[in-house]
């Protein structure tokens, strides 16, 4: 046992030394640092502009509500905006602009992807990991040193483990140096205010990158132990790399859309719009007619008049005014009631649709988890609050805020109406003391917990590939 450990230790030391002294290690370190530092630098500048614009928009909308606030168009004027996550300097995740929700959205965002730390790790570092490990076994065989290693008493599994651990050290150091340099750029930038939580996020993200890179080192060794020559090994490794990194994650959302089809989103939007607009107007007209004919038949003639004439008639007759006020109040209640009913009906239609969309999204997520790169992408986006979870988290808070705001506006409206019965929905409503929307990102603990399944899958991939390499090497012909 001690003998085995000794061999393993010396094998790992030899691998590390060989790697550190190789030209590819030096090149990889320089390339990694240059790439990550440049990317983070560019993304920091981009975030600064985006953040400034976000603050400007919030301020402008706030000032508008202060100046022109009124009950009738409150939902239209008070729209909550998702703040850019300061950690998007590391991971861009779901880009707001790429959703193209506006007529004048920048189309580039929907056509071309952008480079960030996560893309560098998923594509470039995984490729580097394979290039470091594809000749681990087959290369030693070709050089004739594999037989010497075995003859010196090293066990087969210690050779594989030694290659894995030694190779890992060589492959992990350049990205780690680069990531630290990148983080230093962020820490020194005045545009990004880092908190203690961000350091935890960074640590976990770095650990996730190590785990992801380790999966590809294990994969390279697996194919190396299943090939006679390094030429064959690299081809097999790159074949699987293409499938795992470039094919599975990209085809999964499309496959999910075909396997679990959902109706057109625009059709549902139209349907809900009809419910809360045209259908609402029809119902309202019908009930209003009923209301007038059963309770306010005496006002039939007055109601038919234009607003200036009504005002003139009411000014002359006090009893008519009180009767008309009673009618106005009941009409307002009716509008509220119909609005509420139709809104509920529309909400039900969109909720059903949302549930089905969620199911499609979940299916796509399950399919993509067959690829280590997708799992890493979920880890990276969820940790940095730039992924699907963050968008949902924000949407929940914005929804809660809108309800609070709605309640507040209702209370304020009632207060004004009590003071002045002539006050209506289009009159200025002082909302300056309203609650303000402040987005609270989810806690680091929750974010880490959310990524646990993805970490689990990454571990599993690494374990399976390494176990495969150990098993394959047991039957490897070293001649």
């Amino acid at each position, binding site marked *: 046992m001690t003998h085995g450990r000794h061999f393993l230790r010396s094998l790992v030391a030899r691998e590390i030394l060989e790697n550190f002294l190789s030209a*590819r290690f030096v*090149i990889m370190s320089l390339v990694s640092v240059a790439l990550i530092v*440049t*990317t983070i630098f*560019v993304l920091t*500048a*981009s975030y600064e502009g985006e953040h400034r*614009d976000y603050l400007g*928009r919030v301020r*402008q*909308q706030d000032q*508008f509500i202060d100046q022109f606030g009124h009950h009738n*168009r409150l939902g239209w*004027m008070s*729209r909550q905006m998702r703040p850019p996550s300061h950690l998007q300097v590391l991971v861009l995740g*779901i880009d707001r*602009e790429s*959703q*193209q*929700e506006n*007529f*004048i*959205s*920048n*189309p*580039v965002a*929907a*056509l*071309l*992807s*952008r*480079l960030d730390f996560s893309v560098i790790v998923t594509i470039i570092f995984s490729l580097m990991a394979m*290039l470091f490990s594809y000749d681990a076994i087959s290369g030693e065989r070709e050089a004739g040193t594999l037989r010497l290693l075995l003859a010196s008493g090293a066990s087969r599994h210690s050779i594989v483990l030694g290659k894995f651990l030694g190779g890992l050290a060589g492959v992990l150091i350049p990205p780690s140096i680069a990531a630290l340099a990148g983080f230093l750029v962020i820490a020194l930038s005045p545009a990004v205010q880092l908190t203690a939580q961000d350091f935890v996020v960074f640590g976990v993200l770095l650990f996730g990158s190590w785990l992801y890179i380790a999966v590809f080192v294990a994969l390279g060794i697996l194919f190396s132990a299943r090939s006679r020559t*390094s030429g064959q090994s690299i*081809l097999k490794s*790159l*074949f699987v790399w293409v499938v795992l990194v470039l*094919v599975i*994650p*990209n*085809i999964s*959302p*499309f496959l999910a*859309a*075909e396997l679990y089809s959902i109706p*057109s*989103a*625009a059709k549902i939007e139209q349907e809900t719009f009809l419910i809360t607009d045209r259908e609402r107007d029809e119902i309202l007209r019908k009930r209003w007619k009923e209301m007038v004919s059963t309770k306010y038949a005496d006002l039939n003639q007055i109601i038919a008049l*234009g607003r*200036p004439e009504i*005002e003139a008639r009411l000014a002359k007759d006090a009893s008519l005014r009180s009767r008309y006020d009673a009618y106005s109040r009941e009409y307002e209640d009716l509008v509220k009631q119909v609005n509420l009913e139709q809104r509920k009906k529309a909400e039900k239609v969109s909720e059903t649709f949302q549930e089905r*969309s969620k199911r499609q*999204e979940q299916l796509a997520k399950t399919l993509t988890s067959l690829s280590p790169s*997708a799992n890493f992408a979920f880890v990276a*986006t969820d940790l940095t609050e730039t*992924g*699907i979870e963050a968008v949902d988290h924000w949407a929940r808070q914005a929804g809660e805020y809108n309800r609070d705001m709605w309640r507040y506006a209702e209370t304020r409206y009632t207060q004004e109406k009590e003071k002045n019965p002539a006050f209506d929905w*289009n*009159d*200025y409503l002082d909302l300056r003391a309203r609650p303000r929307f402040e987005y609270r990102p989810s806690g680091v603990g929750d974010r880490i917990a959310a990524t646990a399944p993805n970490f689990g899958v990454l571990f599993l991939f690494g374990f399976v590939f390494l176990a495969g390499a150990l098993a394959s090497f047991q039957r490897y012909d070293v001649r």
Partner: protein
Amino acid sequence: MITIWRKEIQENITTYRFFVLTGLLFVLVVVSLIVSYGDYQLRMENYNVLRPQGSEAQKIILQPQPLSIFAKGLDANLGRLYTLSALGVEVHSSQQSINRLFSLFTVPDMLFVIKVLLAFIAILFSFDAISGEKEMGTLKLMLASGAKRAEIVAGKLFGRFTLVFVPFALLFLATAILVSLLPDVSASPEYWAGIGLIGGASAVYVLLWTATGMFASALVHRSAVAMVLGLGIWTLFVFVVPNLGVTVAQSISDVPPGDRVEMESRLTAIQSIYETLQRVKVTHEERDFARIMTQIHEANSHLFEQYAPRLNKLVGLTRGIVRLSPAGALGLFVTEVAHTGLSEDQRLKSAVWLYIDRNFKRLGGLEKGPVDQFRLEPMPIADILGGSTLADTIVLILFCAGFIGLATWRSLTYDPR
């Protein structure tokens, strides 16, 4: 040269590498076709459900283009439903905005296969062209047999190019014929012209990457190092330059996001309605909806006219930076040819805005009479070739010539010992 070309093909066609890489290409093309056609069918269904029935002039939706099966580009955007009113344009969700995983990953269409994977395969086919012969000791023998260096380089370059491009061209042609026979696809002469142009651009692109692989091969003396170098250049031009270029362009141009313009337009509309209603209350005059609508329309026009040139400038700058990479230039070229590129998006938006401007009174019910139907035919191929694709073509050819030049220069001075 012909002898070396033939020898290259004969030697490589039976190798494990040819089998694996061509197999990979076959799998990718088939998967891409299945996925892209399925997606096209969904977009078609969406279009058929949402397209204006009869005289619904306020609805605009473009039909998906058959070539979008090969290069999806901005098709999800171009195929959105726009609802027009005197207040402006409402953009409805695209079919893919529901599943947000689409925004996290790339579209695996034929363009992706060509841009990323065909380039990758070309590198893996050519990285050992010179260094491999040197390692085996056959380079000296070739030179001793009287073959000229330039002939060796040309023979090897075109030999390896043939090995990558011919299987791809056959697969691509088979795919194009299959797609033309599928239901929902109308294969017009424009379709075949587009296929021809995409095929031509792919040929230049594959030649370019084969030359890059050969350049890497002639730069060093070990094939393993040449492969790392070749894949390094591939990573730089396929992922780093175009993807970083987008952010760089955004940072330089400092154009605010669409959200800001949307907010300004929304708040202007609310203010206009609010102020009119308040004035009516005081003056007791009738509510003048025509005035409100005209005010809102004028404000929106002002915003659009101010913002559109800035956005177009940003798009132009992004194009310029992205073109610093052949993969970027190819992506721009192919999407333009497939009618799913940036120009088509700009064209649609300008056309929609002009249409609103022309019909604003009738759309808003301020004037009686029928509104003419919105029409926008895809840009003719001749116009596409005269537009921004000319620059993309020049860039691709320059990159190709540059890498062939580099590969030749290094090979001519290569030490075969």
